[in-house]
């Protein structure tokens, strides 16, 4: 693994990094898809940041905008129909959204890398895995074919693919699901990125393999010090590896905080609903309580709080005024609910809390 000298890390596509800025910060980002039959507002004002060596989980159900927001960070939204209409994405303090495509490409893959849910479809079926991993070196560093392949073997070793030297010329369909996801990870880590975005990296895998992949990701993070953004709907995965969590609903965050705080004392009715709908070994429950209703139509997001039609605590104000994130007592803890205190009290009284 070639280490990139530190001084080049202070440059982002030729622009000087801002000292002390978070590794990656996303502010008030809005993404919409303009389709023939209407505009889908997929992300509506999401804000979060990631520091070095930190794992931030973005949690939400399907259609909550978590994947789209990650694609906006990468700059890989299909446009048209997708547009980032507002907000800012800063990498080490340097704005990415206004960058020219050519400069953006130097960040993409090299400084911020991404892995996807289903490694079978996310890897190109007609090229060998070694070729696909090596392409990172050939395209970004101008390496030769041979150097690319050697680097690929090294990376495949690093993500613990057995017999890497023999398997470097195999095609993706010749690997098992877990091994394919390791190939994806090797490819993403090829250029030693500062940030890795993992979009549901374990959803397509069976449970034992899930644990191995998550262990691998956290080991690699330990090694490289990268920031990890983990997009998932799996509360179990989040609990084990994340430092902080951002809970998303209808394209915006409804609650953010340290993982243990959010788990043990959720401060938004939606988060509470998520917790109650999941079987947990640390809480004795007779039956699960799913959240009633279904996620909102992103072409017609309810006025006021987007969660109000499904919220058991909703009052008149929730249907009119959109609640803003406000700080709670704990460090870095915010919630977007008009009635945080009341809701928490009610939950505590009913005894669903640990």
């Amino acid at each position, binding site marked *: 693994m070639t280490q990139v000298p530190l001084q080049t890390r202070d440059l982002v596509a030729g622009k000087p990094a801002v000292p002390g800025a978070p590794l990656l910060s996303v502010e008030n980002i809005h993404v919409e898809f303009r389709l023939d039959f209407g505009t889908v507002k997929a992300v509506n004002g999401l804000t979060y940041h990631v520091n070095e060596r930190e794992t931030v989980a973005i949690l939400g159900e399907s259609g909550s905008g978590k994947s789209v927001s990650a694609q906006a960070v990468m700059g890989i939204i299909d446009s048209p129909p997708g547009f980032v209409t507002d907000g800012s994405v800063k990498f080490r303090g340097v704005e990415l959204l206004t960058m020219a495509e050519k400069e953006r490409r130097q960040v*993409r*893959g090299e400084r911020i890398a991404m892995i996807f849910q*289903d490694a079978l*479809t*996310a890897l*190109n079926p007609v090229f060998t895995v070694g070729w696909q991993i090596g392409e*990172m070196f050939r395209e970004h560093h101008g390496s030769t074919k041979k150097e690319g392949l050697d680097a690929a073997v090294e990376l495949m070793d690093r993500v613990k693919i057995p017999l890497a030297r023999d398997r470097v010329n195999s095609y993706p369909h010749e690997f098992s699901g877990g091994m394919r996801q390791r190939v994806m990870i090797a490819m993403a880590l090829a250029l030693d990125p500062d940030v890795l975005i993992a979009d549901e990296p374990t959803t397509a895998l069976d449970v034992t393999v899930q644990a191995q992949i998550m262990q691998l990701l956290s080991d690699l993070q330990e090694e490289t010090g990268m920031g990890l953004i983990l997009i998932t709907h799996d509360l179990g995965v989040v609990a084990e590896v994340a430092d902080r969590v951002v809970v998303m609903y209808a394209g915006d965050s409804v609650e953010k905080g340290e993982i243990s705080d959010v788990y043990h004392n959720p401060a938004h009715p939606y988060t509470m609903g998520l917790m109650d709908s999941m079987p947990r070994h640390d809480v004795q429950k007779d039956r699960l309580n799913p959240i009633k209703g279904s996620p909102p139509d992103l072409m017609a997001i309810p006025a006021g709080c987007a969660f109000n039609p499904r919220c058991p605590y909703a009052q008149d104000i929730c249907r009119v005024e959109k609640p803003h994130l406000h700080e709670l007592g704990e460090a870095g803890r915010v919630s977007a609910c008009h009635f945080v205190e009341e809701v928490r009290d009610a939950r505590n009284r009913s005894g669903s809390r640990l």
Partner: protein
Amino acid sequence: MGRYLTRRVLQFIPVFLGATLLIFIMVWIIPGDPIRALAGDRAMPESVRAALTEEYNLDKPAWQQYWLYISGVFQGDFGTDFRGRPVSELMGQRIPITARLAILAFGFEVIIGIAAGIVAGVRKGNYLDNLVLTSTLVVIAIPIFVLGFLAQLLLGVQFPIFPVAGIREGWFSYLLPALVLGSVSLAYIARLTRAALVENLRADYVRTATSKGLSRLRVVGVHTLRNSMIPVVTFLAIDLGALMGGAIITETIFNIPGIGRAVFEGVQRQEGTVVVGIVTFLVFIYLIANLVVDVLYAVLDPRIRYE
């Protein structure tokens, strides 16, 4: 792969026998006496007619005729036409002419068709895409004889860039007929390429390629195009056979003495030897083209393996 190829080539034998038999039967059941027709309006002396009928084995039962023909073929004798000229000589003259026409038409299809498909598919919905979609639709909708005469009139007579007809100017005189011959397939190729590209550009691995920081050119040209070529290659192979055999109209309009016209004239005269010989040759072109396609599949997509 070796075993697969051997098996495929061995399959050629029954196909060859079946094809020749079928064509032979079809020529044989055409009503009328070909020998009498040779004389046209004049009466033919009965002795001449009997002699000719015997010479061409037309007095024998059909199965014997077929047997005599096929055993001749295996000794390298494709028989003679009614003028006494060996069919092999006729094919030797006509095939290179049609091959030249077909290769040029094929070249137009591959180069212009695929290029137009890429231009249209990469930016779906923009004006170039609409231009390709509309123009290909027009070409597909117009019958080929209209296209042929139009091309002849415009580029041969009004603006005499190309020769109007004939093949006296070598390769150059084949350009216009080849463009006409390939035009419809060219339009299909453009549309097929476009559709496959649009489809594949939505694939997950294309998103991965983009997120690797690759240029758009590389994402489309390397990561998407190869996956999009399978339907196009299939069409091209079948079309190669059609180009060789289906050029009758184009060959007639541009007065090109190729095998399309030879076969047409052979059918009119009920010259079994000519028709069977040429059509069997075309059957082989189809068989070989199909084999090449199946091998190309495995080259294009490593998930396809033959055992």
